[in-house]
């Protein structure tokens, strides 16, 4: 059995260690009963038997890289809080909305107790006095499952006052969003949780660990990150780091979508699995659809610069992927085969980020929409040759200097590594540019072809010409 109808999208195939998806095979995986039957809350009990700093050391030693996108180690993040400032808060980032990404939704829908247990372990270890579990608004099923699990866990004495008879007391408050991608950015999440518009805060100078929710030290951790903690506490640091590589231990949930034969969410071994394994491996996607050629892929969520077959043998390892000109981000890979209309595909992403701009800073608000408008014109066949240079120049106003891109042998391009400079407050503006830059750098001839076509249209007809078909 490799797929479960109650966990649509998740694929359990091959013989790999499972850290966070171990209960997905059970239809009732979200119940306290099943959780108990499968070792649930043992991690919390182990944690409570230790001193908080011992638990923190264990997490630090396991190098659990943040699964939200930035990949910052959770244990290190916890250690960034000022030693003398209390109270501290934990905000759980369940606002998953990066294009291509989904794993937090599954973890919340399928194993909410695992997440709750992870929250409790984090709160205990880092001295976090209240937990706010922020779930994306458009995920009512996750909301219901987590809500039900919280109610059960309160009743069972896992949450609240004097947890399991100890002096550890913490509330977990279920909070829900209302549809804004940018709120997935941790400071925007905090603003949103304060009841405001989800506009990211500038960092530096201040990071949430020092000045966060209500101005207090705040840890913002991703759902998947926290879901790793129960297993870690039960199995120990050594068992955790035995999986994957030294710099990228453990497993990761990765969603592979687009033009592959078996798109799905897989829990893969971190650091070693290559993109080729993922796309062509029997236990994974089993090749490109219809035997087509792979043209390009987005390796780390919609914000990531694109790769081409030249990068297939890179492993799923952040530093290597960064050096190759992109990022792993939130574990989302979107695959394009040779039939793909590259400019049109880029437009879907640029449109997304332009639409999701919070609007507070100029380059993103104005630049994102400008990119979208020009690109849409080009895709519709109404572009001019100057438009292509202009797209890059608008992008430079958002990301001055060299923008990361992959090497390409056929084009004679060497890689420009991550990261980029940006004139914006957060990464939404650069993310609107990333697909434009990648597509134009790697597939400029496809844009030029659209321009040539436009040049054959009488000028008077430009504005009345219906848009040609889009991506297909």
């Amino acid at each position, binding site marked *: 059995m490799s797929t479960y109808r109650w966990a649509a999208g998740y694929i359990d195939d091959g013989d790999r260690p499972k850290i966070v998806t171990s209960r997905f095979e059970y239809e009732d995986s979200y119940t306290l009963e099943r959780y108990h039957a499968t070792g649930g809350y043992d991690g919390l009990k182990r944690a409570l038997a230790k001193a908080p700093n011992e638990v923190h050391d264990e997490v630090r030693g396991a190098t659990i890289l943040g699964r939200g996108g930035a990949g910052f180690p959770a244990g290190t993040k916890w250690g960034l809080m000022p030693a003398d400032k209390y109270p501290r808060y934990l905000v759980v980032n369940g606002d998953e909305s990066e294009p291509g990404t989904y794993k937090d939704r599954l973890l919340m829908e399928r194993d909410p107790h695992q997440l709750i247990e992870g929250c409790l372990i984090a709160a205990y270890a880092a001295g976090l006095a209240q937990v706010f579990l922020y779930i994306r608004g458009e995920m009512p099923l996750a909301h219901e499952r987590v809500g039900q699990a919280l109610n059960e866990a309160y009743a069972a004495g896992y949450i609240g006052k004097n947890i399991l008879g100890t002096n550890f007391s913490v509330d977990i408050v279920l909070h829900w969003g209302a549809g804004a991608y940018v709120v997935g950015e941790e400071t925007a999440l905090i603003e949103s949780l304060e009841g405001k518009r989800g506009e990211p805060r500038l960092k*530096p100078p201040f990071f949430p660990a020092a000045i966060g929710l209500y101005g207090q030290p705040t840890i913002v951790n991703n759902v998947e990150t926290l879901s790793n903690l129960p297993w870690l506490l039960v199995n120990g640091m050594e068992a955790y780091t035995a999986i994957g590589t030294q710099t990228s231990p453990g497993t990761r949930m990765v969603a592979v979508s687009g033009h592959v034969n078996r798109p799905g969410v897989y829990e893969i071994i971190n650091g070693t699995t290559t993109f080729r394994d993922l796309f062509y491996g029997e236990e994974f996607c089993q090749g490109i659809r219809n035997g087509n050629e792979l043209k390009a892929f987005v390796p780390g969520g919609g914000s990531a610069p694109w790769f081409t077959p030249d990068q297939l043998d890179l492993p799923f390892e952040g530093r290597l992927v960064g050096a190759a000109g992109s990022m792993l981000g939130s574990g989302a890979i979107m695959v394009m085969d040779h039939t793909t209309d590259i400019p049109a595909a880029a437009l879907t992403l640029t449109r997304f980020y332009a639409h999701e701009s*919070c609007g*507070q*800073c100029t*380059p993103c608000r104005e630049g994102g929409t*400008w990119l979208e408008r020009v690109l849409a014109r080009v895709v519709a066949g109404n572009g001019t040759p100057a438009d292509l240079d202009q797209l890059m120049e608008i992008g430079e106003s958002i990301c001055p200097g060299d923008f990361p891109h992959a090497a390409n042998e056929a084009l004679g391009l060497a890689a420009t590594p991550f990261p980029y400079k940006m004139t*914006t407050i957060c990464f939404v503006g650069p993310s609107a540019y990333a697909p434009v830059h990648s597509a134009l750098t790697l597939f400029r001839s496809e844009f030029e072809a659209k321009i040539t076509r436009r040049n054959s249209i009488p000028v008077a007809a430009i504005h009345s010409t219906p848009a040609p078909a889009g991506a297909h």
Partner: protein
Amino acid sequence: MTATDNSPAPGADSDAPPPDPNAVQVTVNGVPHTARKGQLIIEAAADAGQYIPRFCYHERMTPVGKCRMCLVEADGGRGPAVTVSCMVPVAPDMKIETESPMAKRMQEGVLELLLANHPLDCPVCDKGGECPLQDQTMSHGPGESRFVEEKRHYEKPIPISDLVFLDRERCILCDRCTRFADEVAGDALIHFIGRGNSTQVMTFPDEPFASYFSGNTVQICPVGALTAKPYRFKARPWDLDEVESTCTTCSVGCRTVVQSSRDQLLRYQGVDSDPVNWGWLCDRGRFGFESVNSDHRLTEPLVRSATGLVPTSWNAALAATVTLIEDAKAAAGPESIAVIGGARGTNEDAFAWARLAHDVIDTPNVYSQMGDGLPVGILGMPRATINDVASATTIVLLAPDLKEELPILYLRVRDAVEKRRAKVIEFTPKQGGVTRYAWKSIAYEPGTQVDAVSAALADPAIAAQLASGSVAVVAGRANLAETSAATVQALQTLLAAVPQATVLPAFRRGNVVGALQVGMRPRSGGLDTRGTLQAAADGKIECLILVGADPLADFPDSDLARRALFGARRIISVDTHLSATSDRADVVLPAAAFGEKSGTTTNLEGRVTTLGRKVTPAGTSRPDWMIAAAIAQGLGVDLGYRSVDDITDAIAAMVASYDGVTREALASSPDGIMSHTPASIDPINPVSVEIGVRNSYDFRLVVSRKLYDAAVGTATSPSMAHLAPGQSAHLHPLDVERAGVVAGAEVKVISPRATAVMRIEADPTVLRGTVWVPFNQPGGNVGDLIDCTAPVTDVRIENL
């Protein structure tokens, strides 16, 4: 000095300043510069002579880093990084590049993006010519935008309040106005609405931006998105002439520039005076120029004839004035003459009038308060400055609603609470603007404030707070329908218990402190305003001289004011506008108004600042001092004043508290010079008041001012006249029921004096058992109910 010489020459080492722990060495565009620890890069660069372009940054508000115009490259040791100079502080050895190729590329890029959706309608925009977007596009931008797509479109402009229009197409979403509304004014009635490219500044659909401070948003808007109704399309910036001045609408003394074109006042803008107004103005002060330009100005002298007041020449009017004074003197001696007023003018006006009254006419009956303040002796108490209040650990308010009466002081107090966590202990008969920021808001029934203060002092938490640091008391008249002695007694009780406390007098009238200090106060045995009005009512005043004073509107006890004007045998009125009071005068002399005369003024702290003259006085009107000098001349005395400067010099020379307040000193101190507490002011003797018990069917009357009322400054400003809320009787919602009346209905309010008819409003900010009525509202008559000789006023409320 040689290397072996290690015994320093006398004074040599002490000449070298010790290393400043607050100094941070940086370079700005390669030039070494010493910045202050914690200073933002944008400020440090400015100190080093490098102006970094900016839109959202405003030195009086929290930086937000939204516009991205101020991006520079800064290298703190890890290589040059894109840095938001308005949010990141300097660090040791930081290399700041404001003009590197990268910095220039970013600045040009941001400007081009800002212009993408900007309509570029500069030729028809009020801001054109003084527009930061225009200016910085010229200095830092690419000069044009390649944006050829369709721009954002909105209905434009739309009124967002009675005074302010919004053009959303011009808006660059810098968050200045919205931040001001929330962070500075505390009136978050405008806000960003929508998201991304369709973000706009808006109010809630049916809740306009009705803030007393709305005009500031127009001033700080870096484009022409916000425009003020009174100024729209009135002038182009390059046609405006301006002079720095001080607003005298109230006694805070905000610094302004007064701007005019073609000899007409067109706009006041706030000037950032660090100890006073931080650049802000209230709307009443900002838009009061309309009243100077008003058709209701007195433009020529008037004398009474058989048919009423008729225009005449200055010579004739002055001769008539002199005759009135001489006749009065002849009839009953100089003590039968009284002068009320002086708070509206300059120090020079008041000084000339004080000399005329005391030295020429020789009357002791001179006063510049209108029965709405506290005894002049409060000026002799240890004085607090506005900064003392704003930096105090504890701020005690025994004062009227600062938001209504001294709006910019309210902003400073609010800032102290919000930014500095100062604790406010408010004693008040009615909740007001400060209440929501108060640590303790202690409501008291009129007359019982001494009990409230005593009880508070006995509260351990309050006592501990008062003992925990500096204490500044703002003291003024919170209720015009009660004796000032009740507040004085409470103040004395407080000061006895908190000896380190200092006092800021919340006297409201523009230059009342200056007038009092330069001599517009009774000489020994003289009458104050109430005494004068009483004497006049009793037929003992042969000549009543009103200098910018309108007892019918301003004196709380209207009946006494009316009887006084009826009883005074001769009345001389010097005023800018014809009022109900001047309408009863025998001679009316037209006075120059704000912006039409220069001089100095003294604010409630005792700070002396200059007033600038920008336009010629309306008609033949003259400054008060000139009128005083001319009358003195007519009475045979040459005061010796040929110019304002002569009097400024005379004040510095003759008035001890103005020692050192010279023209030279003022010219080099735009924030003003502090006058000293006048030694000659009599201390207030301990007072004690007996307040009768209120009959449980009665309500105790509380009367206080709203910012907008029927005073000439607002009543003759077309943009503001309709903002006065009108007279109504406010009862606590539970008392509405208890009184057996209905909110919204007209009722009779019956005092021992009179019956007034007004509408009832249910108002939870009113203390139970009291009724609050705003003072001096258009068509209002609450003054009829007030007996200024009674300690408090109790009223009954009945259905019609």
